[in-house]
């Protein structure tokens, strides 16, 4: 399986405080990787490094290398807009913009300068279908996206992320604000979508990682403790501390 993103010795500091102590981790194409670990372990911070969402934080220093399809994303030559088109993101709280479903999903395409109405129509429909929210929105495309339920809003946000045809989608606890049924629907959607896209997901729901992730990476105190195939991590991890965390012994 081809590696699509490779992090080499990634360190991140806020002023004098080092939050990531040198992370080495690769992500395979068309797989879902779960990043797990106690609160404050650096998993979200690390996730946000992968499409440079931390750039604007004051006093931040990031060293090491993150390669996306062989390109160093922190190189001065990297175009941020095109990076984020390729590496999209979905957040913990559903964040639909305060306008219609259609305009939400079309938003990224318009930013990218696409004006062809037919192409946008087609892409909106495709993306909503991929995010498994088409049936619930097809007759209400002009309804305000914020008037849908939390689970539906999150799937609209996934559709919005998919509309620009990214290669990787970063998910920051995408179901933690949702009820179990909506969470399970999102999980099913991800299982289907990972045939086409690469996902990297921060989650506190360990059972969810077990259910959907191909690879699981365990971080603690800014270090990568262990990463590997999810089945191995959940049955026979290399380190006792990984087993302890998975069993809720701390964190």
């Amino acid at each position, binding site marked *: 399986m081809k590696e699509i993103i490779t992090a080499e010795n990634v360190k991140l500091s806020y002023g004098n405080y080092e939050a990531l102590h040198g992370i080495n981790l690769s992500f395979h194409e068309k797989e879902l990787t779960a990043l797990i670990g106690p609160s404050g372990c650096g998993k979200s911070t690390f996730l946000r490094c992968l499409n440079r969402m931390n750039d604007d934080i004051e006093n931040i220093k990031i060293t090491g290398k993150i390669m996306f399809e062989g390109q160093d994303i922190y190189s001065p030559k990297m175009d941020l807009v095109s990076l984020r088109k390729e590496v999209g993101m979905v957040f913990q709280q559903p964040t639909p913009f305060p306008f219609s479903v259609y305009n939400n999903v079309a938003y990224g395409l318009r930013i990218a300068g696409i004006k062809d109405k037919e192409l946008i129509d087609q892409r909106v429909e495709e993306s909503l279908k991929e995010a498994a929210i088409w049936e619930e929105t097809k007759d209400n495309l002009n309804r305000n996206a914020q008037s849908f339920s939390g689970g539906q809003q999150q799937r609209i946000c996934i559709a919005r992320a998919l509309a620009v045809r990214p290669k990787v989608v970063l998910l920051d606890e995408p179901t933690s604000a949702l009820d179990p049924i909506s969470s399970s629907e999102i999980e099913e959607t991800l299982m289907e979508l990972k045939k086409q896209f690469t996902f990297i997901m921060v989650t506190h729901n360990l059972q969810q990682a077990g259910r959907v992730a191909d690879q699981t990476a365990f971080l603690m105190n800014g270090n990568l403790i262990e990463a590997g195939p999810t089945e191995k991590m959940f*049955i026979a991890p290399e380190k006792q501390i990984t087993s302890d965390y*998975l*069993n809720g012994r701390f964190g």
Partner: protein
Amino acid sequence: MHEIFLDELKKLNTQFMEMGVFVNDEIDHATRAFVDHDKARAQAMVDDEEKIPHESLDIQQKALKLMALQQPVATDFRVVISILKATTDLERIGENAISIALETIRVKGNPRIPEVEEIISNMTHNVRHMLIQVLTAYVQDDEKMAKDVAAKDSEIDEAYVKARHLIIGGIEKDPSAAVASSSYFVVTRLLERIGDHIVNLAMWVVYKTTGELNELANPTEEKTI
């Protein structure tokens, strides 16, 4: 919260080990009663035959409860699953010991083929030693010891084959002893089965320790039945 889980697990492990030691004694009592024609002793075992299945059920219920309520994963998962599976094999060993006791009660006449009785004594000694060793490997998470125990099963199988030849030879010499000698077939066969269950126990020790689940029986081994 997790302390409670570990505490429950520790108790379960102790209960499992106690059951193991009890089953081991049962093998000894059963074969001694058989060789000594001690029907009273055998009957006492049969009267108490519910004890092992009852214990097994209790362990399994506790393990299932831990699975359902605590949802252990990784190391903890392997420990609970291993107990769950190993308990069944231990219970089968106990059943085989009771079957030897039943055969002791059932046997008519007084067949004596001293060489076969010697093999039965040796097989008994060896399976009991293997059982204690596999339980030790279980407690100590000793993968190598478990594999060594499993490898010894081929000696049990060889002894069984040898016993069969001797029994047939004995019947040929004195056909009137045929009915009584059939008990020797039953008992050696039961001891051979106990060896197979010990191999299964060893397999669960390896799983508990490493997460790898593989047959430990020698693949080239001649099928004994």
